[in-house]
């Protein structure tokens, strides 16, 4: 039997990890280091290879090539029951014929741990469900089952805890509560959590570091704020929240802020936030960073004139505008309803502006719509 608590510890290291199913490449030459003790999210649309990656780490899927290490020990082809890794499965996979107590004790008993009772009680305490120990899984609500699945994995003190869409089956309110609780539990136990999800909000709420995956590769990796404020690809810009991406060309990049020509207007783009390889660039700006005012109003910063509101929806905290620009593109603008002025209406001529520091630049040959069709909200 394996003693998970004393064996491999350290960072999870994936090297050149590849998994193909026939012609289909699910995971494509993936290199990734997940630091010990972190809360790491693999974020991406369904079919991007995130679950396959997780299953390879768990040992439930064998890699086509590449290696998996935890610290210094290689586990690439190790049987799942010999890895210091536990999984919280999607839909929980609690054993229906065993009580909650026996579900949690399962891993401890297989490993021949002495103080099973003590540890099960502690795990039940951690998820605050001590009173349900003698129940059967199907007597519990979805949220309770979720916590038991977590307790059943955590009780083994693995080096690594894998969470496969753990909150997918819960309703919105419960999901929010569990996000906070999961984050708290992770801090409490200090185990490395690797969390797979297609829900960008869930990933941003919980994870220290997010890796955005698309078509078997990692598009970008970083802190939630980093990914949101300074995306490097159009996929990331569209998959995490929404973005306006406008075609332009860099006319001057000598200063700290490059000058970009977009359909005849010059706007500023900080050189450090520009990820284009040449002068062809997609200028990106988040909808909530844009200010909107009736045409003719004096504005500062990057200014785009000649817009006409094609749609306005008042949603309480903010008003969301679709603004048709002279070159035919529709831009999105989220305006906080905080200054007492009545919202603008459809057909109004407007001027848009934003502070140049919020601008980001992407390579001009990228697909403007990449990632937006895979957005969870449109699923």
């Amino acid at each position, binding site marked *: 039997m394996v003693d998970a608590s004393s064996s491999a510890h350290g960072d999870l290291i994936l090297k050149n990890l590849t998994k193909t199913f026939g012609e289909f490449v699910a995971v494509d030459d993936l290199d990734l280091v997940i630091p010990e003790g972190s809360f790491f999210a693999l974020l991406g649309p369904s079919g991007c290879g995130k679950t396959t990656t997780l299953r390879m780490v768990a040992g*439930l899927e064998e890699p086509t090539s590449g290696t998996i290490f935890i610290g210094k020990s290689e586990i690439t082809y190790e049987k799942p029951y010999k890895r210091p890794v536990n999984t919280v499965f999607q839909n929980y*996979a609690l054993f229906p014929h065993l009580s909650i107590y026996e579900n949690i004790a*399962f891993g401890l008993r*297989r490993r021949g741990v002495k103080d099973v009772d003590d540890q099960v009680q502690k795990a039940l305490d951690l998820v605050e469900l001590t009173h349900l120990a003698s129940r059967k899984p*199907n*007597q519990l609500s979805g949220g309770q089952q979720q916590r038991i699945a977590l307790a059943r994995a955590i009780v083994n003190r693995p080096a690594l805890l894998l969470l496969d869409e753990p909150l997918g089956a819960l309703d919105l309110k419960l999901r929010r509560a569990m996000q906070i609780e999961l984050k708290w539990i992770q801090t409490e136990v200090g185990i490395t959590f690797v969390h797979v999800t297609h829900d960008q909000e869930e990933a941003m709420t919980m994870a220290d570091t997010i890796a955005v995956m698309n078509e078997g590769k990692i598009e970008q990796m970083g802190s939630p704020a980093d990914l949101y404020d300074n995306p490097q690809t159009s996929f990331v810009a569209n998959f995490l929240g929404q973005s306006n991406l406008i075609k332009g060309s860099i006319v001057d990049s000598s200063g700290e802020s490059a000058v970009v020509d977009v359909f005849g207007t010059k706007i500023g783009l900080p050189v450090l936030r520009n990820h284009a390889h040449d002068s062809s660039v997609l200028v990106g700006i988040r909808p909530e960073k844009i200010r909107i005012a009736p045409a003719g109003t004096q504005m500062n910063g990057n200014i785009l004139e000649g817009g006409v509101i094609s749609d306005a929806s008042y949603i309480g905290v903010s008003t969301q505008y679709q603004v048709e620009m002279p070159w035919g593109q529709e831009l999105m603008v989220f305006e906080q309803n905080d200054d007492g002025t009545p919202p603008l209406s459809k057909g109004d001529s407007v001027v848009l502006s934003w502070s140049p520091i919020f601008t980001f630049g992407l390579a001009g040959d990228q697909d403007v719509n990449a990632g937006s069709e895979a957005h969870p909200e449109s699923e």
Partner: protein
Amino acid sequence: MKQASRWFSRNLIRIYAFIGFAYLFLPIIYTIAFSFNNSTKSNLVWVGFTWNNWLNPCGAPDVCNALGNSLKIGVLATFFATILGTLMAFAMGRYAFKGRSVVNILIFLPMATPEIVMGASLLTMFISFGFNPGFWTIVIAHVMFCISFVVVTVKARIASLDPRLEQAAMDLYADERETFRRVTLPLVAPGIAAAALLAFSLSFDDFIITNFNSGDVNTFPKFVYISAQRGLPPQANVIGSSMFLIALIIVLMGQFVGRRRAGVR
């Protein structure tokens, strides 16, 4: 008149259900009622009520010998058919091997073959092998036709099993053997139990195949068939009723255990 028709239309479903159940259960009620008949020769007309048949179920000549044979054959056939059928069901439900789809069809064939044909050809086979028809030829024949039913029943249960449960067990440090013992087998067990009950009732009930392959060994269905020609003793009804009640108790117990296992209170 109008009121009557309204009452009729309101209770149509109940009337229909009543007729349906009456159709299903009248023969059984008849069997049970006539087990209390004080008949002497033929148990076809009601003579009067008596406890005697129930107090003396072996009263008719050879009835308990035939019953004993049927029970022994049933238990043996169930035992072998359940073990073999369950192993086959796991092989077919779990492993992708060459010719699996052909095996799937072959398994159904014995169920589709007319019993009378199978009975006759089994006898031909036993004789050409030099076996004398008797107790063991009945057992072999019963195991043979029960296996298909066991395979189908257990396979259905295996197919409905969530593969993630076994993965979860492996993830929680159970090796292949432990996973099978702690998770797979307990979860498939209700299917195996159902298959065993089905096999037993098929074996206990069988007349056609048995009649061909039994030689001079008597079984309960054979006893009933033969004695029906010269007057069925009420003991046959007693045994039939008891089997029905035992089956009923097993089904109810199964329901009760199933609900407890599922945790429904």
